[in-house]
């Protein structure tokens, strides 16, 4: 393997949980997660060839992941397929109350709109408002307002 390919492999392995989590949030089953994962890898590799380091690599990875997932879902909607998100997969192990509560909240997130889901995902990932703004391409103030609205929406969605 060439140096560039080795570096890329390290980058992917170092961020596999992030990529997988984003795929999970936008998929209906494991097959779709795998397809999305593959597609993201291809786009990351295409991007990696000429990634000029103008942005934080983490921000860039999130952007590619989110855009790929949103693109796939838009395509599916155009094809008329309704995507029941996050029903077959369960990454939260356990059956105690705490886990059940989290699972319910997670299923509520899956009922948010595409962009809202992407933004709350970035917040869950622990990105700062500055980083979220860089990924989504809106101002930091808009991120703050938007996240506040999303959290309110989450509260209003019944499990």
């Amino acid at each position, binding site marked *: 393997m060439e140096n560039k390919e080795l570096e890329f492999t390290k980058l992917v392995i170092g961020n596999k*949980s992030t990529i997988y*989590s984003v795929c999970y949030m936008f998929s209906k089953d494991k097959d779709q997660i795998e397809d999305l994962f593959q597609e993201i*890898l291809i786009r990351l590799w295409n991007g990696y060839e000429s990634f000029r380091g103008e942005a934080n690599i983490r921000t860039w990875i999130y952007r590619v992941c989110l855009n790929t997932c949103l*693109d796939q879902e838009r395509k599916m909607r155009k094809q008329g397929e309704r995507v029941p998100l996050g029903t077959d997969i369960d990454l939260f192990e356990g059956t105690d109350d705490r886990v059940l509560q989290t699972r319910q909240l997670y299923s509520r997130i899956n009922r948010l709109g595409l962009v809202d889901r992407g933004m709350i995902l970035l917040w*869950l990932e*622990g990105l700062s408002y500055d980083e979220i703004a860089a990924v*989504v*391409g809106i101002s930091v103030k808009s991120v703050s307002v*938007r996240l506040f609205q999303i959290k309110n929406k989450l509260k209003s969605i019944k499990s």
Partner: protein
Amino acid sequence: MNNQESSESQELEQLRMEYAEMKARLDRQEIINSNMIQMSINRGVNSIRNNRWIGFPMLLILFAVFYGLSRSLGLRLPFFIVTLVFTAAIVVGNYFRLGRLDSAALSAGPTRQFITEIKCRRVQQLRWIQIMLPLFVLWLGYFILEVMHTGRQGMDLYIIIFSLSVGAATGLFISFRTHNRIIAFYDSIIAQLDLSGGVK
């Protein structure tokens, strides 16, 4: 009320913690290995961009064909030169426009600035076809005049017109197909990146 809000905030914070735990679990699992990554790398070659080289061998073939046509039909040198310059302009133009698709897909600069750049390129692509189409019609007229100048009639003339029609239709088909692919590519990037378009 305050208790309820506090409980909901705790829920979100709880989710954040669960999310972090889930990621830690995923990190410990072998979701992906080097072989899978290698396969993706091999698949990740941009087929549209690679097409940009095809024009150059085609240019050589066209050179030979038009040279042969000019000699056999008695077409004049200025027409031969005009045809070559026109074709070369298309091939070189395609090479640069398709080559730019790479950086278009991959730029990591600020999103807003990037979307603006992509939209500009899309407009440039539309202008390119708007300029090339009338030029093509002009060239076609020049070709017909040139053929008439040779004084050929009857079956010879029909054969030339038939060949011309087939050649022109093929050229137009390839040009429009490439144009549509480039426009579709830009559209898909704009749709992918313009996340904030969905934020009301």
